[in-house]
């Protein structure tokens, strides 16, 4: 614990003229839930969940919350990003849909038609694993190297198609980072569907982004070697470009600790826009983290390892800054409190998923350490309730305001 660092939390800076007005979804790494806060840092909603969050979280246009959570049977449970269950809950925390597969990890991508792309771990056969280059030799987990599989599942949980990464990656070309373990090849940590139907995947361990054709499975484009250092969370922009978080962890050469946000053109690799701080470590998160392009052109960035969420304009000017101070920064892994945030997303006040719900008046934030109890309901005992102002106030009362 450092005294100076643990002292300042909450809203640090806010320029309400330039910031994109809305609500920010915060998914802390530890603690008991996912939070929605307004621009002033006030708490608007809290989803109390039993499972530990595993990474990305999304407020769907229908107002439900979709998130990845950890499953205790995950074979690589200790790895950050290990998941196992995808859960969709409504505004009050009632489970609407879930999908269990203990091997799930990192990200997911909800398509407009309701299908979901998921990433899961599969064992790589020894014959292929032996050919994989890079990594510290002898660091396979119990002699097994794990690979990735991308699946598209529909609402019933049926697999529509799947793509097994190690069948298509080339051991001569897709070389792992030399100082990472050989537990995995290539640790996909983000996937999305491009407008033309191809799938884009970011490979954490290989420092690259690839596009494959889902019909043939062939990799049609590779980019990032020599540019990226352990990237995170590619997202598709309205203009067809990709925004991603280049963490800078294990950056070759002079590694001062600098993360970058890059806007790249898929299938060409041109960097159209980038954001980084000139002084080292002013913007750096070696793990977790994500970024988002907002409708007014600003960018919301979650610097995960410091729990800092901030918004910058296209010119890189800071317009909003918040350091996670939600009650869930709880001691679990470490002896002291920490405020790491897996991911954060901003939704505008007119976002369809927030209709009616955004009218609720935020209450004063409760003091850290307040026990919110277990509010997770299952589908069986859920009552169909109309969300009214009264029901929301009841809910807030339940939460102990």
């Amino acid at each position: 614990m450092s005294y100076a660092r643990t002292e300042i939390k909450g809203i640090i800076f806010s320029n309400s003229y330039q910031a994109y007005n809305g609500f920010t979804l915060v998914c802390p790494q530890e603690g008991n839930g996912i939070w929605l806060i307004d621009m002033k840092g006030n708490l608007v909603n809290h989803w109390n969940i039993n499972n530990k969050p595993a990474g990305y979280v999304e407020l769907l246009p229908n107002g439900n919350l979709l998130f990845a959570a950890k499953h205790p049977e995950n074979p690589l449970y200790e790895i950050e990003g290990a998941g196992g269950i995808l859960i969709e809950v409504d505004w009050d925390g009632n489970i609407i849909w879930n999908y269990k597969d203990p091997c799930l990890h990192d990200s997911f991508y909800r398509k407009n038609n309701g299908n979901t792309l998921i990433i899961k771990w599969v064992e790589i056969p020894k014959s292929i694993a032996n050919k994989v280059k890079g990594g510290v030799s002898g660091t396979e987990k119990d002699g097994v190297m794990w690979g990735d599989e991308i699946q598209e599942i529909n609402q019933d949980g049926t697999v529509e198609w799947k793509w097994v990464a190690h069948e298509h990656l080339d051991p001569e070309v897709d070389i792992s980072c030399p100082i990472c373990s050989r537990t995995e090849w290539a640790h996909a940590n983000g996937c999305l569907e491009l407008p033309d139907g191809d799938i884009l995947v970011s490979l954490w361990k290989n420092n690259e982004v690839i596009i494959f054709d889902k019909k043939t499975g062939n990799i049609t484009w590779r980019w990032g070697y020599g540019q990226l250092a352990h990237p995170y969370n590619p997202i598709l922009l309205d203009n067809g470009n990709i925004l991603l978080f280049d963490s800078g962890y294990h950056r070759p050469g002079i590694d001062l600790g600098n993360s970058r946000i890059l806007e790249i053109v898929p299938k060409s690799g041109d960097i159209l826009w980038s954001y980084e701080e000139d002084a080292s470590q002013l913007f750096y998160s070696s793990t977790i983290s994500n970024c988002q392009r907002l409708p007014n052109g600003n960018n919301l960035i979650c610097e995960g390892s410091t729990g800092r969420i901030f918004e910058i304009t296209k010119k890189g000017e800071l317009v909003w800054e918040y350091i996670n101070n939600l009650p869930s920064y709880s001691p679990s892994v470490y002896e002291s409190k920490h405020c790491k945030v897996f991911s954060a997303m901003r939704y505008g006040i007119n976002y369809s998923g927030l209709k009616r719900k955004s009218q609720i008046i935020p209450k004063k934030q409760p003091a850290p350490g307040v026990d919110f109890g277990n509010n997770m309901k299952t589908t069986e005992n859920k009552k169909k309730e109309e969300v009214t102002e009264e029901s929301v106030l009841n809910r807030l009362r339940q939460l102990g305001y």
Partner: protein
Amino acid sequence: MNFGLTMKKGVTFYDPIRSDNGYTLICPKYSKDMWLIDIEGNIVNRWRMPYLPAGHGRLLENGNFFYGGQLKTNKEVGLPEEFSALGGILMEVDWDGNTIWQMEVPYQHHDFQVTKRDTIFFSAHTENSILPYDYAMKLEGGIENTEYENKIWGDAVIEINRNGEKVWEWIAHEHLDPKIDDICPLETRAKWPVINSLWICRDGNLLLSLRVSSEVVKVEYKTGKILKRYGKGKIYHQHDARELKNGNILVFDNGNHRQNYNPSFSRVVEMHPETGEIVWEYKGNPPSDFYSAVAGANERLSNGNTLICDSQLGRIFEVTEEKQIVWEYISPFRNENEGSNTNFIWRAHRYSNDYTGLREKNLSPKNFLWENRIYGPNLTEKRFTPFVF
């Protein structure tokens, strides 16, 4: 980490009973002013030097300030920016800043030591230390084809006397093994092994920290032979290796390019001199709270506390053996350099109240009224208020 921008400045925590107390010497990276502060954060002396510091400065036992200055920039010397902490001049000034001695030493970098017999050790990328072709071919590791102008710049430790005459020289490639002392797989092959700290042990031998090889070696003074290697596979791109009074070795393990998956963190480790086993370590809690990818320093104080310098964030703190912070200071000295505004500091040193170099010195903060109004404890903003409009 915007921490450096929004955090409080000055002394943020002080426990007078458990702290070792004393005065702290600070050399900001991009400033020609070197500062001595007391335990409450008051400025008690300032040395206004002619050059930017290349590494750090020390307060000698005679009360003089000694440092390596950046005589020429990397561009003027003709070396790329990745040759960090490049100096070129060693200088000694008295308490009031009058030059006592100075000597131009080309390619000097990082560390120096002034010995009791009044000679000076320093590390330098001298031209005769450039790796011979055969040796460079044998040297393992590094990113392929990243040599600087097809050459790997080596490193040397040189001992000079006050007249500038070379008394002793140790050239890295004459003694190191190209297979054992290899280059980190993610470093360029432009320079090797980068001796970023040197320490004279009580037996007269030298302890050198080899940054690129991620290890600490003990070198016999008489023969130049490697007596012992420490930390290979345990520490990564470390700094400031030193021998403690109990014989153990204290080193700042930066953790940059640490193998296997771990969020970046730094730590301070104390190793057993014979076995190399780690007998004590300090990590942040959570570990990512304490990370300095480059530079960094540590020293053991007389009461057993450890002073740690988190260089990149300009943060100096003192921890007890039980890893409790008892003093913490954030450098308020921000400087602008080539577009980067940072409070990066080189190694910080603590001198106890009875240190001989501080005897009969005027240590009143009143001598620096104006500076204390800007950087001192009273007017440093204590309460943070969010800026919202």
